[in-house]
Structures are given as C-alpha cells and as structure tokens.
C-alpha cells in the first residue's frame, strides 16, 4: 500500500510517503489509522485527532469506514485550505 502524507501530517510523521504491506485484519481507513498510529511517536502525534484529519483513497475523499486494500493509494492530510 502506498501512503502519502501532506502538510502538518507529513511534518509530524517526518515522511511524505511510505510503502507498507497492509496487515491482515485492517480493512478500513479508520483501522489503518489505528495501526499507523502505533508505528512511531511521530505517527501517533500526527494521527491523534481524527477530527483534524481527512483521508483520500485512490485520490477520492474517503470516510473512516471506507474499505482499503493493499493496492490502494491512501493519503492522510489536514482539512484543505486552498482557493
């Protein structure tokens, strides 16, 4: 699975991307975030406040219960501030 991080999520994790194998039993975006948060202090800090996070699966906005597969591109980022 391709993971992408943007803005302060990227900064707190200290990576703009990482490629990981999706563990068995992790089937939704929400479960993915729970698992990612255990990977480092940076991940935990970046992913602590779910209200401040937005997720895209394969470049489309997703919900915490959106299914994720190992061949997906999942991006995690703060609420957008363009325009």
């Amino acid at each position: 699975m391709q993971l992408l991080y943007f803005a302060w999520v990227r900064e707190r994790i200290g990576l703009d991307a990482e490629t990981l194998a999706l563990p068995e039993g992790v089937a939704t975006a929400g479960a993915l975030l729970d698992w990612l948060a255990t990977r480092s202090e940076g991940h935990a800090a970046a992913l602590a406040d779910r209200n401040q996070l937005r997720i895209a699966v394969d470049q489309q906005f997703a919900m915490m219960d959106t299914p994720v597969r190992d061949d997906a591109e999942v991006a995690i980022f703060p609420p957008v501030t363009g325009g």
Partner: protein
Amino acid sequence: MLTTRVQPGPFDLGAEVAVLTAGRSDIGAVVSFTGLVRDVALTLEHYPAMTERQLAAIAADAAARWELLGATVIHRFGSLAPADPIVLVATAARHRGAAFAAAEFLMDWLKTRAPFWKREAGGGWVEAKATDDAAAARWVIPS
C-alpha cells in the same frame, strides 16, 4: 469548454477570459474570480494526482448544475508573495445568473474539496475556516 490547470506560475486573467469566449457569440456573461495572497507570503502544498482529478470533477459538477458555455479553473502552488494571484475561476453563460452562481459554487467547492494546504511564511499552517464549510454547504444536493 472546461479547462482546469495546476501550475506554479502566474496566469493572465484577460488572456484566459479571451480564450473562454473566443470565436463564439452565444455568450452573454462572463464572471471571473481571482484570489490573491493577502498581507503575508504563503507556500501552497498540494497533492498533484488528486488535485487534477478534483479540479476536473469540480468543473464537471458546475457544468452539470448550470448551463455553462465554458469554465476555466487555474490554481497555483509553491511560493507566493503578498498580492500574488493564487486562483482563477472564470465562467461563461448566456445569462449572468448562471455565470455568477457557477463561479461562486466553484470557489466554495475549491476551498473545501481541492487538496491544497497553505503555510504562512514564518508561521504555521493556515487552518480551515468554518465559514468556508458553511459556504460549501449551500450547494450540497440533499441525497
């Protein structure tokens, strides 16, 4: 004609509107919105693959809601100084009502659905505004 572009450099409002209206005489109304950097320099980060998809989807959504004869959406990224233009939306229609509504819709949608993040020079990440969410909520079609 729907045109969407993401680019680091500036855009030319007059030239973009000229392209939008070129060679046709059925357009009665063109509305443009230009967003500019206010007061403090910014860096705009974005998610390129998703940005392109979202801009195209946003423009198609506007064209499905109003009888547009054309629309252009250009969003910049990278380092921008105060007074620099950030974003251009232009809409063309027979009558002004559709052109105005579609331009407002596109801006509200961009503010809440296009994956850009602003960071202020010497400061932190700009926080999303509740007023932008409220503005975008006007356009949600009840499911």
